[in-house]
């Protein structure tokens, strides 16, 4: 039986609540996950409290659901899958623990959002990798623990980026560190005294808990801070747009530009998603999208560091030459949106309110997976035809294409826009389209909700050993139970 006092003894009375309204916020999201109300919401303020909570959970078998971002949430991973769960709300842990310009690194707690960090980094001439216009409440730690794609593919060396080091409390309550911070000095301060900067992205010896915990929806560990690799802030920067009715030529350009490591920001959007990001009113979104070509390649070049102006001009010259060779027209204005306006509102920015995916119809569902960039057209065609089969207007499909791992793969995202009252009726289409993509070879590397049921039956040995790891690191299955392939453990 869950006892509030157990938690109050750790975090104080004011940080434990069973208020119905608050519990409701943690019981559902913009996904098809079955709503389930947690028994408590607990708000720890530091690592020691989290550790004590995890130890308590092990002792009394309390299921914990770590949540570090604020609403609106979309993927169902923070909706409890079991009754009597305790939502561990980490959004109050907001300390930016360290920013170091020389080593291009920043340490953040789980509650720190992209806007908060960017403000701090800009003052030191740095920038961090950031997902496409994240919501203002999005936790950096939450985002990167889930391997969220970021908008500068040339800096995406590995899907684990930009995490350098991290601190984790494992499911059994043990506190461990990953990456360079896992070194021998006892504290971060002691490591810094001998020049350490927690920059190494890989862990000592033969295993890496960071990799195991990443993408696990909190099934193995709770990250209490993360060291992020940062890059230099451009002194000179320009965004370019290239439009087309079909994606093929833009795909060729994206392949070429990543090969040349020319661009900073680079992704492909369809007109609907572009308009949703730039306008907040549905009518204006409609107006803007009508002025736009259906497919838009967005890219930026930057001059930073030594001889920044010279670097910028050099990249600009190479970019224009290459674009000309490819027959791609680069523009600084598209549909009335100027590049500087785009930079001000999108590049390294978080979404205004409402969150851009909720602006067009009031609600949205996401389907995303990894594939080869060259296969984007066939998936788009499948989306269109499947939408028609299910009576869903393809005009309400947003598309976002993001190269990852320096162009080795791409994140392909379809945003299904609908009014809230129609989302239930849309579920069959959502499920059908998800299945269609899977059958075509779309790789749900982050298999939320129904995607887990598609992916894991084909990965029997993987599931066996993932579950084995869960038993090692979370022997009492207190960490976000019943998610992914960890059902009925």
């Amino acid at each position, binding site marked *: 039986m869950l006892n509030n006092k157990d938690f109050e003894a750790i975090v104080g009375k004011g940080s434990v609540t069973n208020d119905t309204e608050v519990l409701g916020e943690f019981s559902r999201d913009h996904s098809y996950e079955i709503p389930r109300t947690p028994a408590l919401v607990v708000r720890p303020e530091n690592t020691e409290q989290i550790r004590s909570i995890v130890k308590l959970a092990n002792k009394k078998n309390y299921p914990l659901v770590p949540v570090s971002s604020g609403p609106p949430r979309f993927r169902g991973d923070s909706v409890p899958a079991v009754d009597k769960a305790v939502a561990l709300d980490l959004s109050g842990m907001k300390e930016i623990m360290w920013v170091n310009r020389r080593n291009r690194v920043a340490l953040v707690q789980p509650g720190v959002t992209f806007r908060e960090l960017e403000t701090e980094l800009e003052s030191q001439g740095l920038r961090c990798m950031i997902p496409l216009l994240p919501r203002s409440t999005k936790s950096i730690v939450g985002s990167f623990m889930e391997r969220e794609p970021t908008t500068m593919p040339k800096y995406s060396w590995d899907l684990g980026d930009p995490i350098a080091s991290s601190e984790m409390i494992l499911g059994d309550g043990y506190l461990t560190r990953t990456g*360079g911070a896992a070194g021998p000095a006892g504290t971060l301060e002691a490591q810094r005294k001998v020049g*350490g900067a927690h*920059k190494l992205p890989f862990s000592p*010896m033969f295993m890496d808990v960071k*990799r195991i915990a990443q993408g696990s929806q909190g099934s193995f560990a709770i990250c209490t801070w993360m060291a992020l690799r940062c890059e230099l802030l451009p002194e000179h920067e320009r965004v370019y747009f290239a439009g087309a009715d079909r994606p093929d030529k833009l795909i060729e350009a994206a392949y070429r530009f990543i090969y040349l490591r020319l661009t900073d920001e680079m992704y492909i959007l369809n007109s609907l998603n572009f308009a949703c990001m730039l306008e907040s009113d549905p009518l204006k979104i409609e107006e803007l999208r009508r002025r736009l070509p259906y497919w838009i390649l967005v890219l930026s070049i930057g001059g930073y560091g030594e001889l920044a102006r010279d670097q910028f001009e050099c990249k600009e010259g190479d970019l224009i030459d290459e674009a000309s060779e490819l027959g791609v027209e680069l523009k600084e204005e598209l549909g009335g949106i100027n590049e500087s306006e785009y930079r001000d509102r999108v590049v390294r920015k978080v979404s205004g309110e409402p969150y851009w995916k909720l602006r067009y119809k009031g609600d949205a569902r996401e389907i995303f997976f990894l594939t080869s960039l060259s296969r984007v057209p066939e998936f788009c065609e499948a989306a269109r035809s499947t939408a028609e089969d299910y009576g869903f207007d393809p005009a309400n499909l947003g598309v976002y294409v993001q190269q990852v791992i320096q162009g080795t793969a791409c994140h392909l995202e379809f945003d299904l826009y609908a009014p809230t009252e129609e989302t239930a009726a849309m579920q069959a289409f959502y499920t059908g389209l998800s299945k269609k993509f899977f059958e075509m070879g779309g*790789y749900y590397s982050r298999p939320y909700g129904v995607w887990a049921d598609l992916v894991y039956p084909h990965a029997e040995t993987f599931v066996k050993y993932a579950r084995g790891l869960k038993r090692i690191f979370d022997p009492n299955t207190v960490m976000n139970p019943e998610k992914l392939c960890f059902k009925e453990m």
Partner: protein
Amino acid sequence: MSRKMPDEAYEEFKQVAGENNVSIEPEVLETYTYMNGLAQGAMGFHWNRKPIGVVLPSTLEEVRKILEICTRYGLKFKAHSTAWVIMALATSGNVVLLDMRRMNNLEINERDFFLITESYPPAGVAQIEAMKKGLQPHLVGAGPNASNLASATSMQGTGGTSVRTSMNERNVLAVEWVLPTGEVLKLGSINTPGAGWFCGDGPGPSLRGMMRGAVGQVSGNGVFTKVALKLYPWYGPEYKGGGEPPFFNSEEVPNSYLKYVLWDSFDDEAEGLYRLGEAEIIDYNNRWAAGAFTSAMTTSNQEYLDAEAAGKYKEMFGKGFWTFFMHAPSERSLKHRIKVFEKIVSDTGGEIADPMIFGKRSYEIALQNAVRAIWIAKAAYMPTSANTGSMPMTYENIDQCFKYALPISVNAKKEYANQDKILNEGADNCYACIDEDGHYIHIEHACLIDTWEPKGEPGGAAMVGMAKALSKGMGLLYMSWPGSLKDFIVYLQYSAQIQSMIDPNGIADSSGTMGASYLAT
């Protein structure tokens, strides 16, 4: 204790791999018992355990069946591809070696910048194929002769191009891994039919985290039969050379720039490296000092001794020097890079030297290091046949390595050189390369030693350097000391649980890996 292979097992291995692909002949087994490779010097091993048999599988299915036979007869196994470290040989008794040379397929996915390699193809072969398509794989310091799969799944994986091509822990995409149980574990996107090999993480958690950390287990956790690895741009044309080995005559690489650089102090050196890294202009970098350079420049021990006696290399490179190579996609880009490069080196008090400074040989060494990773291995093994490390820190940021760790190992090395326990080729013979535009750095502080020399003390300087660095709170060889002693033990306990999970019958020959050694203690 080594035993004889049971006759029944021998017959079954022949049925699986074919009669000509199994051997228990003493003469053959002898050749799988010695290796002049890494760790020989550090550990002082000359001869390793003799395997009880060698099997050469050619397919995934054959590998699975071989492991099943091993399980049935209580035999251990160790997979061995191009073999660089001595642990790639049998490190305990009763071991069947899997020589992976027949699994040598290689496929280039030009479109999505990756290759798929079976266990054997050496990185240099992959490079030749990739260059034809304007791409290049990462090449480790061990050289083009090393299997990229082995480096990526089972060893370490840094090299001079790491500044542009990362290191192999981070180059891994999808993986096909035969566990000691014989099960085939797939990592990443190949778990979804028809998806492809472009990703090694997930679905959900990434089991790459139990495959390796900073280092792998040298086959102590199974047999890796196929892996996809990232490819990086090569702005062409493909490398071409002629002439006589070992120096050859390379054709010039268009739009490239190759120089040696010297700094007077570790502080200036660190400053220069930080700035060069974040400028994102370097495509190859390698630090050497006079000892390694002399090794590279000479072709025999006598030639080495003569060159050392002449002293000119020591005079020039005694404090260490860097080779930098830039290879740009356009003339415009190259011009900018050179401007930035020269400014940074000048600002930080560095001196730029022409690679022809000691004639064609010194140019070829620089170029072939940069493009083919040819010379590091030679420098490490000539003239004394063994390289050991005095390595207080193999990874972290530039400041820690140069301002804190390296001075410790220089002093440790001096102590040993003064007692003639290692070759006195100069206290500072540090190899280093910045990785990923300077986000971290790898260093190895080499000591040359002849392990057959009675006075020689292999590994001594390394251990002293490591111990002193550890006492000051810095990492150890290949990040092998996580946290406090208590943390270290817990860490090993987790590792042991993973090992027990994937190898419940204990048939993997894991005793040669560091983790297993620690477990034994």
